[in-house]
């Protein structure tokens, strides 16, 4: 039962041709409701995410972005289609998927270290060994010294950093983030964007980031997937080839502006984006 994520991770080659880590094939979701019959949340979607790539998913509210993420995270099943995460079905990839949601979703009765250790406890891994890993992750998100504190003693941005440390502690190959910085103020958000890029450059996880912010998507991602209003489908797949590491100043550059304008035009023609 105990899957050892490190064993698989260390055997990984240096991503020469970026093989598809995550394969989403004709995945759709239809909700059954009592009042409105069947509601299609996500139209049949097919997309592949390369190993170690950073992919952003943007789209209007209610377009099914979060639904797709929940399917990948194994939180809810798809209605049709198939999801493969490193060859395993969604929901069976225990310990190989880290999830960060819009709110930190920390457990108030657990200290910060205990929160970060939660996936270790769930997976029944060796606590003594992973305690070091958890401390290293807290260092990575710059929360060293806060391991004994409780969530209520931390600011919103710090709590979200703790949530990122928790998502990374078992060294999953896939990191799913649903509007992770949506609840933060603009200054903190920009800082977190720079931090996330630093963490990604260090860890090279496959990241799927859902965001309402087009500049955030362009700043962070290698690829931006643009989704249509409900039922969502992927309209456009845009490669962002800005050099890394990207500083906040790239946001003022002409190439950055060109990408942002191009994505925004999709929404203007398709009926708007909020946020």
């Amino acid at each position, binding site marked *: 039962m105990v899957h050892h994520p490190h064993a698989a991770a260390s055997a990984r080659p240096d991503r020469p041709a970026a093989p598809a880590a995550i394969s989403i094939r004709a995945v759709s979701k239809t909700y059954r409701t009592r009042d409105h019959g069947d509601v299609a949340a996500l139209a049949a979607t097919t997309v592949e995410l390369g190993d170690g790539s950073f992919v952003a998913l943007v789209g209007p509210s209610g377009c099914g972005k979060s639904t797709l993420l*929940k399917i990948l*995270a*194994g*939180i809810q099943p798809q209605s049709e289609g198939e999801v493969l995460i490193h060859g395993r079905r969604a*929901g069976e990839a*225990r*310990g190989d*998927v880290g*999830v960060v*949601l819009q*709110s930190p*979703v920390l*457990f*108030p*009765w*657990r200290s910060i270290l205990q929160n970060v250790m*939660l*996936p270790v*406890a*769930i*997976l029944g891994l060796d606590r003594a060994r992973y305690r070091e890993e958890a401390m290293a992750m807290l260092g990575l998100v710059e929360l060293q010294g806060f391991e004994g504190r*409780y969530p*209520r003693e931390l600011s919103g941005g710090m709590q979200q950093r703790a949530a990122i440390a928790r998502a990374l502690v078992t060294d999953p190959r896939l990191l*799913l983030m649903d509007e992770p910085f949506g609840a933060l103020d603009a200054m903190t958000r920009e800082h977190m964007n720079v931090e996330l890029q630093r963490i990604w450059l260090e860890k090279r996880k496959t990241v799927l980031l859902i965001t309402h912010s087009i500049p955030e998507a362009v700043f962070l991602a290698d690829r931006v997937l643009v989704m249509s209003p409900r039922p969502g489908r992927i309209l456009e797949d845009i490669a962002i080839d800005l050099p890394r590491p990207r500083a906040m100043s790239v946001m003022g550059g002409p190439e950055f502006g060109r990408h942002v304008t191009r994505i925004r035009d999709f929404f203007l023609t398709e009926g708007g984006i909020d946020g």
Partner: protein
Amino acid sequence: MTAIDRRQDGRPAAASPGQHRSRASEKARDIAVTLGFLVLTVGTWEVLVRALHLPDYVVPAPSQIAMALKRGLASGLYQRHLGVTVYAALMGFAIGSVVGIVLGAVIASFRFAELIVYPYVIMFKSMPKVALAPLFTLWFGLGIASKIVSSSILCFFPLLVNTIAGLRSADEDRISLMRSMGASKFQIFWYLRFPSALPYIMAGLELAVVLALIGTIVAEFVGAHAGLGTLIQIQNANMDGPGQFSVLILLSVVGLTMNVIVRRLKKWVLHWDVSAQGSDPNTQI
């Protein structure tokens, strides 16, 4: 108690640095006001009873009550009855609470348990449970068993209802997150639902500790060999007014002590919950 609550909440939340030093003297003044009024009330009571020549089996003077309390404690009579009542109340509290929490967890976790058991819970919940005391005496006798049963039945319901509500209060996002980690149903219960229910369970225990004493005393009224409830009835039959009042004082001391212990326990268990740490008039006085 509510008056004290209101006064403390009404006070300005944060004292300015200058006022900080006078905190202790302010507290001393508060205590002086409270004690002063107590002395005034008791003194007036004493004077009125003497002046109006009220018979002591109707309203005894405070001095008579104090004498009765001293006599009862000196002879060891009160301690003997107190021990029986406290034992029955604590046993009832422990049994009723544990059964309530366990059954609540079963009902909240398994739908078939809810379908089978919950209708009866709803039915018995709205019944005044003290009305069952005569039946318990009939079934379990005049000994301590009927008191423990009566007290535990009263404690059972708030714990059952609060445990179910608490287990269902677990945050949806936290459940989703645990699912994404591959948590089993039991792990979601143990790491999330149960801790989420703790504030509800502790609130249930606060209610139950009061009910435990009520359940015991009522059962003792119905029929018992020993206990403070029995003592009150004997004193009542003997027209011993000072005695009855002195036992009432003893009972309120017992009630207050049990209440303070549960509140301390609550603060310790819910150390992470800011709302459970509020100022507590009972422990401050």
